[in-house]
């Protein structure tokens, strides 16, 4: 519970900080992308690794 609570706090503070620094909605959008894309990429990599593992296991 604390971890997700902390994550929500951090995202609020990061958004606030970026907007205070630049005042640009585009910068906030980039922040959203930076906070979202890596997680998706990690998930995709994990799935590909799993598929390869499965394929190697089936071949051997």
């Amino acid at each position: 519970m604390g971890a997700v609570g902390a994550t929500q706090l951090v995202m609020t503070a990061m958004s606030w900080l970026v907007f205070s620094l630049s005042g640009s909605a585009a910068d906030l959008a980039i922040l959203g992308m930076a906070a979202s894309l890596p997680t998706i990429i990690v998930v995709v990599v994990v799935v590909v690794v799993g598929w390869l593992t499965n394929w190697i296991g089936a071949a051997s």
Partner: protein
Amino acid sequence: MMVTAPLSAALMTILALLDGAGAVQVWHVWVIAALFATVAGFDWPAWQSLFPSLIDRRYMTSVVSLNAMLWQGRRMVMPGVGRFIITILSTAAIFGIAAAGFLVMFAVIASLRVRAIKNRSGNALRAFAEGVRFIAHNRLFYVLIPLLLHHHVLQHVLPTDHAVVRRSVRSGCGCLRIAERRFGAGISRWHPWHRIATGLAPARPLHAG
């Protein structure tokens, strides 16, 4: 999780120090947000897989429901708490609190006595492949996984909402905007017609006065 919690704490400490020293720049926040999300990409599945080790199988449904309820509750409450802390302290304080929270989480995880679950295949990679096969053979996941991804992406589109909320607060209709944000008026408000209709001024730095 023994690795991700200290890493998250370290990232938050760096950001707190940069922010506290007044040296923080926008790209610092971007980089740390990306690293934080990368760590979270490993952390979240680990959390999910921890449940079966902590509880009995017959309580799983209740635990999942409780977890989902707490998850949504936190998402509603924590931004408000964050705003309160920013008002009385600073954003650096939030990063410091988050760093301390991750260290506490690390201590809690380190103290857990988790019973080992024996894999049927006896090999972690094979067990993982077994999980992927299970997902591939159940069509329900073909809907659930895109839905989850969609939800995740949409959740991170919302930070741009801060721009609207903060500008609206200055223009005197903050309560309405914050209520709209909290209760979800939908992504349609990002369409140009909405921005024109609401007469939002172009963004400008707050410290510019």
